[in-house]
């Protein structure tokens, strides 16, 4: 730890209950090194926060460290030389060895140099189900997506929203991607997003996925909330049957004092295709002039990957740690399921790594419209989807 205490401003968009608790762990650990974590939380979502972060960096007033989803979000900032090269540190601390799965670091690497510190693994492919809701509707808790769809009418009859999808565009877009991996399979996902195969995207296999998405939007039509955690809260309170959401939703269940398996059920890969995408959050370190601060940046990077911090953070956040060498005894049911899948190596990259923000945004526009507009046909949606894939970069 450096001798002098240095203030380091860290920006992120973790402001929900579970997220804030998790980030507090980082802050605590960093403060313990003798430096000071200056919290720069920006509420909203990554969409609100990122422009602000980017303006600050390009505007010449960079923060000490900032959260991004690792992948292509910061690509150009790195190319423009605005981000600090962490390769030296990574070699010293042998990140390549401790970070698991390996593909995580790929997202941080550009031209062979490492620019970010991954802090967790987030997988989107989860279906969260409220046990109480199904009990009320008098149907058993489903084991996979298909059973779930079948149970929808019963839920509806009981005055329960079958599926909660918040109004923010990334939620519907993400739900579709999950359906694509679950219903279409990992290969289909890669063909569309990695290979950008527009023909395939317009084909019958993806049509099946759109059919499922059509079911989903019908099930979700009565959701009147915006934020994802409000939607999660519908599930927690039994007002909704379930939600397709990333593992971070687990934090909300935890804050609400619910217990996996008893109060709620989680189905990775919607119970159809049990894989985990290695998306996640990472911290980038803008290039600073101040030597003191640069030192503090290194301290922070170390802290983030520290095994103890990793455990504390990920338990609160509900995500998976980036190190394979730590023991998560305290992990709950769902996390354990995730760790198992991870151990089996059923991993795949996620859209943050494969697609540019531009394409992501177009996708979001399409699916938020699709979910909100019942009269938009499946065919039209698929055609537009294929167009987006065709022009994706």
């Amino acid at each position, binding site marked *: 730890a450096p001798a002098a205490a240095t203030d380091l401003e860290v920006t992120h968009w973790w402001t929900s209950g579970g997220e804030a608790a998790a980030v507090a762990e980082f802050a605590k650990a960093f403060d313990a090194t003798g430096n000071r974590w200056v919290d720069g939380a920006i509420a909203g979502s990554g969409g609100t926060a990122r*422009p602000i972060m980017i303006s600050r960096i390009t505007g010449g007033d960079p923060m000490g460290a900032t959260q991004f989803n690792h992948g292509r979000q910061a690509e*150009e900032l790195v190319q423009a030389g605005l981000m600090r090269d962490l390769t030296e540190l990574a070699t010293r601390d042998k990140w390549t060895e401790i970070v698991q799965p390996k593909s995580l670091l790929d997202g941080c690497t550009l031209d062979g140099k490492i620019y970010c510190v991954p802090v967790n693994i987030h997988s989107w492919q989860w279906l969260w189900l409220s046990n109480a809701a199904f009990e009320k509707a008098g149907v058993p808790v489903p084991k996979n997506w298909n059973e779930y769809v079948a149970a929808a009418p019963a839920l509806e009859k009981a005055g329960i929203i079958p599926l909660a999808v918040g*109004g923010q565009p990334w939620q519907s877009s993400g739900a579709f991607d999950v359906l694509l991996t679950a219903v279409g399979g990992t290969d289909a996902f890669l063909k569309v997003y990695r290979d950008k195969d527009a023909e395939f995207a317009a084909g019958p296999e993806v049509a099946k996925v759109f059919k499922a998405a059509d079911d989903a939007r019908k099930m979700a039509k009565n959701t009147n909330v915006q934020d994802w955690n409000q939607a999660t809260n519908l599930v927690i309170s039994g007002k909704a049957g379930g939600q397709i959401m990333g593992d971070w939703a687990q934090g909300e269940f935890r804050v609400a004092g619910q217990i996996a398996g008893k109060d709620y059920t989680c189905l990775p890969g919607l119970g159809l295709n049990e894989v985990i995408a290695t998306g996640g959050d990472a911290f980038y370190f803008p290039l600073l002039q101040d030597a003191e601060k640069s030192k503090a940046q290194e301290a922070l990077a170390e802290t983030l990957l520290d095994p103890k911090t990793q455990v504390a953070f990920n338990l609160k956040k509900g995500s998976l740690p980036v190190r394979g060498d730590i023991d998560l005894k305290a992990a709950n049911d769902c996390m354990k399921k995730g760790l198992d899948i991870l151990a089996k190596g059923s991993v795949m990259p996620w859209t943050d790594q494969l697609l*540019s*923000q*531009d394409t992501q945004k177009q996708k979001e*526009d399409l699916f*938020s*419209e*699709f979910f909100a507009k019942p009269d938009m046909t499946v065919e039209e949606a698929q055609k537009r989807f294929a167009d987006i894939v065709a022009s994706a970069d």
Partner: protein
Amino acid sequence: MSKSERPNQLFRNLNAKVASIPMVLTALVIFVGGSAWTVLYSFTNSKLLPRLNFVGLDQYYRLWSTPRWLVSIENLLVYGVLSLVFSLVIGFILAALLDQKIRFEDTFRTIFLYPFALSFIVTGLVWQWLLNPEFGIQGVVRGLGWESFSFDPLYNSDIVIYGILIAALWQGTGLIMCLMLAGLRGIDEDIWKAARVDGIPTLKTYLFIIIPMMRPVFITALVIIAAGIVKVYDLVVAQTSGGPGIASEVPAKYVYDYMFFAQNLGQGFAASTMMLLSVVVVIVPWAYLEFGGKKRG
């Protein structure tokens, strides 16, 4: 007789010119320079950072084939026309009512004006809440026993823009009313007397005599409303974030989203340029007539 030596014109009224430097700089560097820069980069494929990598009109082709942009334009037109009409009409009617030598004029005026003091964020939040079908107006009316009552503009794609309009009018009409009131007060008392002697009913007097006389006020009001319309952004973000789906998207939000969320500056700049273009086409000739041509006053 020889001509007198005329001193250098540049240095006459030097102080006035020096004092105008901030204005000149703002006009040239920020408004002209910034716009020109934006237009220039709209022909590039800049992503997160501006790069001079020209791609011709590509961004514009894409822009005009994007459903969200088309929806935004349509929304802006609907919202713009309606908010223009309603602001003027409501503002004028309120002003006319207040101009009837009523009691408690100050109180009423303050009530109509106070929303203007609030930010769009606040307005958006409050109305989002009031229009929430579960516990907002709809919920309350249903709670009173009228079960079939339905009023949920923010959750209905077809009418969501009207929900935004309600909030916008709530916030903005007060100022328009103030302008109109000032205008009404400026009208020669004798005109009213002449109309009374002529036996012209009040309504007709307003329609055929007073309103045509208030042209300058209407123009000022128009400028203020129109400037607000083009810029409408915060309200939409705070109230609906453009939803449901993309039903309440507006151009300014498209620009912002594509520049920053989608990290596609080129696309955002192309959209900005389109907005700029429409503003310029409508405003410049008018502004020149209104403010440039005249000498004083």
